[in-house]
């Protein structure tokens, strides 16, 4: 019984324990080695951290839903870039350009619609053809990236609108817009997954798809909605980020899918589906960003971040495997 409790505690609390560990470690190492003049656990530093984790974080929230469903989406990075391009470019369209700053909401709308449309395409293919989501979105990752390039060739897309930058840099309690969007999205999707019928059905489908079908849950449309949701969130992430930066490179967003999946898995969501939580993913996103910043703080080269995160991901997997072992009675397969 105690072993069970310990297991559950480790499973659900592991990511937060890890975050605390990171904080303490970087604080102590940073001050002992006097490598850095500022404290690591500094309010401004922490607020900045939220902002920096927003682009991947918003996508990771959507990825959590997709993965709880038992699917995966490898195309979010390309969706992110395309939505960014559409947003910046649409502000120069003749119909919007006359609106002045009122073009901004339309540009956002266009970006979000783009994300939804791309998600819709993936979702429809997964639903109607029955091809595995991994393959569908692997193809879409290439295809959407192709669309990104077709838009503006290999040229970056610029459009700087100072009002939009102001909105992006607006903030309360030091939290900038993108950080607020990240927190808001996490909260809303958390509510969706824990309180609504759609959210509960997402777990049921990931857990036991056949049972869900037999119980009358319409799995196809359900999956479709989730793909539209992740497309929307990838676009929202682009809106939050590019409103401030005003420039999209056609290679932007590459490997975002892998970072998002890493955060989701660190947060305890199972690849096989059926288990996981938005809270865990939020922790996973923060943990990765903390690591990035922390390694910089103690003077480690930025290159080591990738190395450390990769090793931690594997260590988490190993730990999870150990915790789920049935002890010596296990069949040696």
């Amino acid at each position, binding site marked *: 019984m105690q072993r069970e409790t310990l297991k559950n505690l480790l499973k659900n609390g592991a990511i937060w324990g890890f975050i605390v560990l990171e904080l303490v470690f970087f604080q102590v190492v940073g001050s002992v080695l006097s490598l850095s003049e500022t404290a690591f656990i500094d309010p401004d530093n922490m607020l900045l951290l939220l902002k920096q984790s927003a682009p991947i974080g918003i996508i990771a929230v959507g990825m959590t839903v997709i993965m709880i469903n038992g699917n995966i989406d490898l195309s979010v990075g390309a969706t992110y870039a395309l939505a960014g391009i559409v947003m910046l470019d649409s502000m120069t369209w003749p119909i919007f350009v006359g609106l002045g700053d009122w073009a901004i909401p339309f540009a956002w709308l266009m970006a979000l619609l783009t994300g939804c449309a791309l998600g819709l395409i993936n979702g429809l293919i997964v639903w109607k053809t029955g091809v595995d989501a991994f393959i569908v979105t692997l193809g879409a*990752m290439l295809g959407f990236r192709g*669309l990104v390039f077709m838009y503006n060739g290999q040229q970056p897309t610029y459009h700087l609108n100072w009002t939009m930058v102001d909105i992006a840099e607006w903030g309360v309690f030091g939290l900038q817009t993108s950080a607020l969007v990240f927190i808001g999205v996490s909260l809303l999707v958390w509510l969706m997954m824990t309180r609504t019928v759609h959210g509960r059905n997402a777990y049921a489908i990931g857990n036991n798809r056949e049972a869900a079908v037999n119980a009358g849950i319409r799995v196809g449309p359900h999956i479709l909605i989730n793909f539209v949701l992740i497309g929307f969130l990838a676009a929202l992430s682009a809106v939050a980020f590019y409103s401030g930066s005003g420039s999209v490179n056609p290679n932007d967003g590459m490997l975002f899918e892998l970072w998002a999946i890493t955060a989701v898995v660190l947060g305890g969501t199972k690849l096989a589906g059926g288990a996981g939580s938005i809270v865990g993913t939020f922790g996973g996103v923060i943990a990765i960003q903390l690591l990035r910043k922390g390694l910089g703080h103690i003077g480690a080269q930025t290159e080591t971040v*990738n190395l450390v*995160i990769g090793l931690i991901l594997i260590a988490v997997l190993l730990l999870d495997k150990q915790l789920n072992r049935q002890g010596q009675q296990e069949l040696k397969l």
Partner: protein
Amino acid sequence: MAETNLKALGGLLARQGILVAFVVFMIAFALWNPRFIEIDNVFSVIRSSAILGVMALGVTFVVIGGNLDLSVGSLLSFSAIVVLDLHETPGFGPALAIPAMYAMTMGIGAVIGFLVGYLKLNSLIVTLGMLSAIHGLTLTWSGGQNMDIANQQETWFGIFGRGTALGIPIPVLMFGLLAAVLAIILAKTPFGRKVYAVGGNGTAATFSGIPRARVVFFTYIISSFCVATAGLIQASRTMGAQNTVGQGMELEVLAAVILGGASLLGGSGTVFKTVIGVLILGFIQNGLLLAGLEFYVQFVVTWIIIILAVWLDIATKRGKLWSPIA
């Protein structure tokens, strides 16, 4: 009986559909532009596909064995950077740099093989983690700098990427040779049989006394050997490399393997089909370039082709075009 004939036809299409599609595609393009099948053009296509192709050969083993390898792109960058850096290290030169690079790349392959094979960790996540870790390793090694061979006239290092033998580009020869050897290993040796068994049903393979862990381990060794070879070709061709030269290639490689008809569930696929998958990707790119389109149009075309190919495959198996999901 007509029904069985129809089934046989369907079965043939399902097995060889990708080959049929390839031939049709080649003929159509050749009719449209005869330049397409000129020998020079064919060689140039194969040469430019060689790096992707060599990697895909190794990944074929991993996928048939029932696993994934998302770390090959990252590992390609590593091997290219390492071989270039060692080449420039005083006292090394190509003769020492190349074997040292092979040893290191395959050492990383062994780590992945150990984690997936012996520790039985999920290959998607392990290789995802390794993708990131290897990238970090590469950056640490290079200090974030690009690598270049300073004195390109005084080394024979360039033959792997730029040389020709009997009028055939060396990369094409290496790709062809490796494909032939690996095709024989997979189709004709006990090890190849075991790879199919482990990927087809790992539990049954264990119950048949097949050392599953060791078989999986060696699929990753083969994969890393192929990556090292691809890295050699890459470094040799450009005599220099960026830290991110292989970025994103893992998924293109996987796309070629899937296009060839290997199932992600394991247990099916062949080296020959993978080569076809690689060539389709290469010729599409080439055909589109000849048609005056930009290189990125092929991304969109590849997307459509992958989904159509896999869809056709499962539609034949289930006997229905559309998925029965409500």
